[in-house]
């Protein structure tokens, strides 16, 4: 059982996302992470879904997704060389004169950016894989994480390999 990142190319039509997510809930597959957006083709969208399961389950998920008429292509990125990223916005407690400097230091180690400074808090933006963001979040906890917002994971294959529709 390990997380698999599925890249799903779909028709850019109303209702597609609910077809996809409906399929997951009805067949008892859990979505760990979900990200949807436009892609290089104007009439298609790309959905990146992270699912945890054994090989048989992942195979079944992919086959069921493929049965949806609006799904054009389903690929499991996990078996390939790939880059995966998530983005998080973290609002951390930072009373003036207290821990600000430390927070800034941690941020720079993680190559996170301070994108807003308020009187009582700062907002960090960090991009990375899940582990990196988890690690940063853990470190920031001691100062008080007031709010945390994370995107779903997105992924892309390295090199010349691509997830594209056949035609």
């Amino acid at each position, binding site marked *: 059982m390990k997380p698999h990142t599925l890249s799903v190319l*779909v*028709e850019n039509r*109303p*209702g597609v996302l*609910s*077809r996809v997510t*409906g*399929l997951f809930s*009805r067949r008892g597959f859990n979505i760990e992470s979900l990200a949807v957006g436009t892609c290089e083709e104007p009439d298609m969208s790309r959905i990146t879904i992270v699912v945890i399961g054994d090989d*048989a389950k992942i*195979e*079944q998920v992919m*086959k*069921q997704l*493929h*049965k*949806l*008429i*609006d*799904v*054009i292509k389903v690929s499991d990125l996990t078996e390939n060389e790939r880059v995966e990223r998530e983005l998080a916005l973290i609002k951390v407690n930072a009373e003036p004169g207290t821990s600000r400097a430390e927070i800034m230091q941690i941020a720079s180690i993680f190559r996170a950016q301070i994108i807003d400074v308020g009187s009582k808090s700062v907002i960090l933006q960090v991009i990375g894989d899940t582990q990196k963001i988890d690690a940063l979040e853990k470190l920031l906890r001691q100062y008080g994480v007031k709010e945390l917002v994370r995107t779903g994971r997105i992924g892309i294959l390295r090199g010349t390999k691509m997830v594209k*529709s*056949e*035609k």
Partner: protein
Amino acid sequence: MKTGAKILVESLQREGVEILFGYPGGVVLPIYDELYESPLKHILVRHEQAAAHAADGYARASGRVGVCLATSGPGACNLVTGIATAYMDSAPIVALTGQVPTSLLGNDAFQESDITGITMPITKHNYLVKSTADLSRVIQEAFYIAGTGRPGPVLVDIPKDVSTGLAKDIPLPEKVTLRGYNPTYKGHKRQIDKAVELIGHAERPLIYAGGGVISSNASAELIQLATSCGIPVTTTLMGIGCIPCDHPLNLGMLGMHGTEYANFAVTESDLLLAIGVRFDDRVTGKIDTFAPHAKIVHIDIDPAEIGKNKRVDIPIVGDVKAVLQDMLASLKKSTMYEPWLKKIRHWRQHHPLRIKDDGRLHPQQIVRALSDLVKGEAVIVSEVGQNQMWTAQYFCFHHPRSWITSGGLGTMGYGFPAAMGAHFARPDVPVFDIAGDGSIQMNIQEMSTVSANKIPVKVAILNNMYLGMVRQWQELFFDRRYSYTELPSVDFVKIANAYGIEGMRVESPDEVLPALKASLDCDGPFVMDFRIEREENVFPMVPTGAAINEMIGGHPRS
């Protein structure tokens, strides 16, 4: 410029539709107005569920796409059970629903329901048409999707302003292409070769054939595969009819109420050719002990069915007919499995299905009498419950598409309206609905439809004054505590008469044949109320969770 309603009706004609089953209402008024003078035949049902089942029965009996039509909201919602039934059994139907005008969508308008949302899990695909200009293309796609690949229901939701709106005729392609939908028809050559090789090496091969053989019209190929090598065949409930019942290689149905010899054969086989099946739990019983010694070849058009419930050795994705043709081309005919067939003959001899002959009225006798009378030249539809299993076990089917039943969903109330639909597909043969007294009352209002339209469906109610199948489970597994399964006596003949239908009550075995003959002699619909032994059970039976060779109510193992 044409109205959407006109475009719809023309599109249906373009698809070769000859009949649709429907029920009108506010938002479909423009469509009904267009039907008023159209050559399309429309049958007014008495409940939308019946329209969906009738379309489904028509589809299964003919192999063509069936069509039903309902208004928005309650009308559309009433189709749901029928659509789900078609979905579970892969029956191709197109369900057309009216919808509130696009300007009101999402406003909880009068008789608005999100029918595309509701039917998402029970359709192969569905559409909410937003513009009149899209309608002809959508209808073409809907029929294409419903009828190709693994068939299934497609719903098209049409807002009122889309049917009243105007659009120009747009040229449609000869053939639909959808980039997200490309069914695989031809099986992989190497996989097919491997399967053929396994057949050559097997000692105890068995064909396990299902509804996929019927929907792919592959009976002839299946029979050829069986006979050219001498491989015995067992069929699922949905596969019945793909090989004649009296074919020496046919072991009948397997699974929960299968024959003992079919289930024994599965358990002892060393090669299982699973063709157009999906390893349903009612077939496999305890999955780990299903065909425990067999290598499994699985042929199906739906890749998602392969490996879903059971690990297989040789998966072959493709249309059953095309794959079997390729297999036959490379098959050597010499193989024979005489010791295996001998063993099966022995089981068959010592574990036959039984029919009691004690002067009382048993359902098995009735089914057998009908079978002997029509000799396979009829379409037999069933309801759900004991009536369904007795028919599956005791009726001798000779042709594919002559047996129509709700297998996957097990929908009581399916049979009668499906029989109406089947009649329009096969007006040349009598159509019977073998019913239970419970099931028939789930769509009994259709007596009005068959009466008004002189649809000559013959209803044979195996009346045990029980929800018999549930009662059987209570008897066997709940200490005979018959909790809410007893039904009061209903005079079905009087009900039939009230609808203007002839009928007959039958209480003893010697009245069976005369009643069946009377039903055939009657030009119109006919209702038979067979007062059967009330606590008759369906045997043999595999209790849930048991291995399929552990049957109760069979013969002592010899």
